[in-house]
């Protein structure tokens, strides 16, 4: 969105690379509700270039939605994503695609030499990447790099929502995809304003927690809730036994006994509640498509 100055350069750069490379291609540009002249410009270019397709959103729906719409519309056997700000080098497109064709389902770019201000971008990014590697078990150096190549079946399988576009490799991993990485160029922003900020990093960490819980327990929610049930019931029973023991010895004041008994009952009630949550979660997951089924489909597709 609002990448007016970049649009021409982007289109030229991609077209040059793709023409030189000689493969059949299409360019899908998603205009995420930009308010400047981006869309009329794109429309004009699309009139001249039949390779270009432009999707215009009614308002700004965010990067995940934009990527989701792009995935929905793209028709290629291989789908390459990149930002509109030209920080990724279109020259690297053949590179990531070649890597993908070595037998991966997702290939991510790795901006080894980032051209950003050190403190506000590189440091949070390094921390976030380390966290992502730890929690999702996808060992990429640079998950945040927008330049990525996807095989058709990964594009068909994953559904993007919220702000999950940052974790597509992790989502693909759940579907059993093989994930590769290749070093790519990274350039300074020539035009426009960078839209990155520090608060985004916090949201990433929030999302990461969500994703971690989700991916770990999606197929077995009872493990999560059952664990909580066990802990709380054990604590509750222990508290009740403790107070019973001391009552027998007559060493507790009445008000102390009251508090302890209430605590025990509270903990047991909480434990039972968690068990019920677990049952509901189980129903929810069962009514959705099972992961195993999706994996089978994936395997079947791969063998075709």
């Amino acid at each position, binding site marked *: 969105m609002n990448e007016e100055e970049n649009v021409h350069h982007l289109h030229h750069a991609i077209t040059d690379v793709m023409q030189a490379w000689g493969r059949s291609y299409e360019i899908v540009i998603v205009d995420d509700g930009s308010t400047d002249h981006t869309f009329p410009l794109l429309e004009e270019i699309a009139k001249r270039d039949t390779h270009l*397709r432009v999707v215009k959103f009614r308002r700004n729906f965010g990067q995940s939605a934009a990527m989701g719409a792009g995935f929905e519309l793209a028709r290629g056997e291989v789908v390459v994503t990149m930002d509109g700000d030209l920080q990724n080098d279109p020259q690297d497109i053949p590179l990531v695609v070649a890597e993908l064709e070595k037998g991966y389902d997702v290939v991510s770019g790795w901006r080894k030499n980032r051209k950003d201000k050190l403190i506000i971008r590189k440091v949070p990014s390094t921390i976030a990447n380390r966290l992502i590697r730890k929690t999702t078990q996808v060992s990429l150096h640079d998950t945040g790099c927008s330049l990525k190549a996807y095989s058709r079946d990964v594009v068909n399988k994953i*559904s993007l929502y919220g702000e999950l576009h940052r974790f597509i490799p992790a989502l693909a991993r759940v579907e059993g995809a093989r994930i590769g990485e290749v070093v790519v160029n990274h350039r300074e922003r020539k035009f426009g304003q960078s839209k990155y900020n520090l608060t985004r990093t916090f949201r990433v960490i929030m999302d990461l927690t969500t994703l971690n819980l989700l991916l770990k327990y999606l197929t077995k*929610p009872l493990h999560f809730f059952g664990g909580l049930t066990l802990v709380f019931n054990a604590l509750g029973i222990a508290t009740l036994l403790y107070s019973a023991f001391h009552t027998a010895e007559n060493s507790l004041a009445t008000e102390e006994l009251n508090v302890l008994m209430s605590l025990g009952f509270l903990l047991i009630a909480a434990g039972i509640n968690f068990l019920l949550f677990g049952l509901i979660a189980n129903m929810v997951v069962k009514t959705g498509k099972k992961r195993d089924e999706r994996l089978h489909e994936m395997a079947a597709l791969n063998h075709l």
Partner: protein
Amino acid sequence: MPIETQISPRAAELPARLDDDEISGNGRAATMPKISVIVPTHNNGSDVQAIYRALRLGLENYGESFELIFVDDASTDNTYAQLLDLARRDRQVKLIRMRTSFGEASALDAGLRHALGQKLVFATARVRVNMQSLPQLLRKLDDGFDLVVGWRTPRQDSGVNRLVSWMFNWLMQKQGNLQLHDINSSVIATYRSVLENITFYGNLNVFIPVLAARQGYKVSEEQIEQLPGAFRKSVHVAEYIQRLLDIITVIFLTKYSKKPLHFLGFFGIIFTFAGLAMNLYLFVYRILGFGAIAGRPLLLLGALLLVIGLQMISIGLIGEMIIYTHAREIKEYNIETVVGE
């Protein structure tokens, strides 16, 4: 929702007439109306005739072909009998009767299913406005807006009603980034395509402008005269509480429906940490030998907060699971155009 009767002379003849129109094409625009006006009624016996006359007059002045769809939400007075009479005399009137009262959103939905026009006007008989000025809303629609809300002016309601209405508007303006004076007027002109992209149920029809704005449609307003008299003087507390709950629903639907754990997790973490901090304090207190803690109510409060916090996180997680398993069926964006095929 079961619909008891549907009286519509044109619906039965529609296929033949469509062919007819295609062949002759001599400007017989009346076959497929351009505008459908949907009017839910519920015990409005005294107003029906006036509404009908005002609507006809206004729309004839506007000049495009139209149909009037009355959806009678199981009135118990003579509303239905009067409407039935109108439908028999006027071929532009369609009448739908609900088997029992399903509420306004359902009435609107039923009307929508039977509407043939591309432009839709929704004007409930509950709100007394001068229906003759409805075309002003349609003209604004012609100016390039996707949805136009009728702004009742001057307001004729009681002070309490106006205060509640003002608060409601203020809240909704914060939510939907909408600068409207009278979001809950229930008089709306819009296009079929807009309503097809919005889900409304229960009482959520009041929020159509907000939901449309969230989808990126251009929403505007136009003044419409409110008729004096017969406004409600009593204040129904239950109704306002329900309205408040509806607002919470809409806020949740528009902001957090796709990331419940962001919302519930935030509060959950606060509660959990507050509870943990209290019990940690007591633990240290006990370990350092300052005294017994069994009798301290703080112990109970801490445990309670911890439990509530964890339950919030759990419910958020369940929400995430629901969305994750159904994400494929929900589209999160609204495409205006696709260029290049």
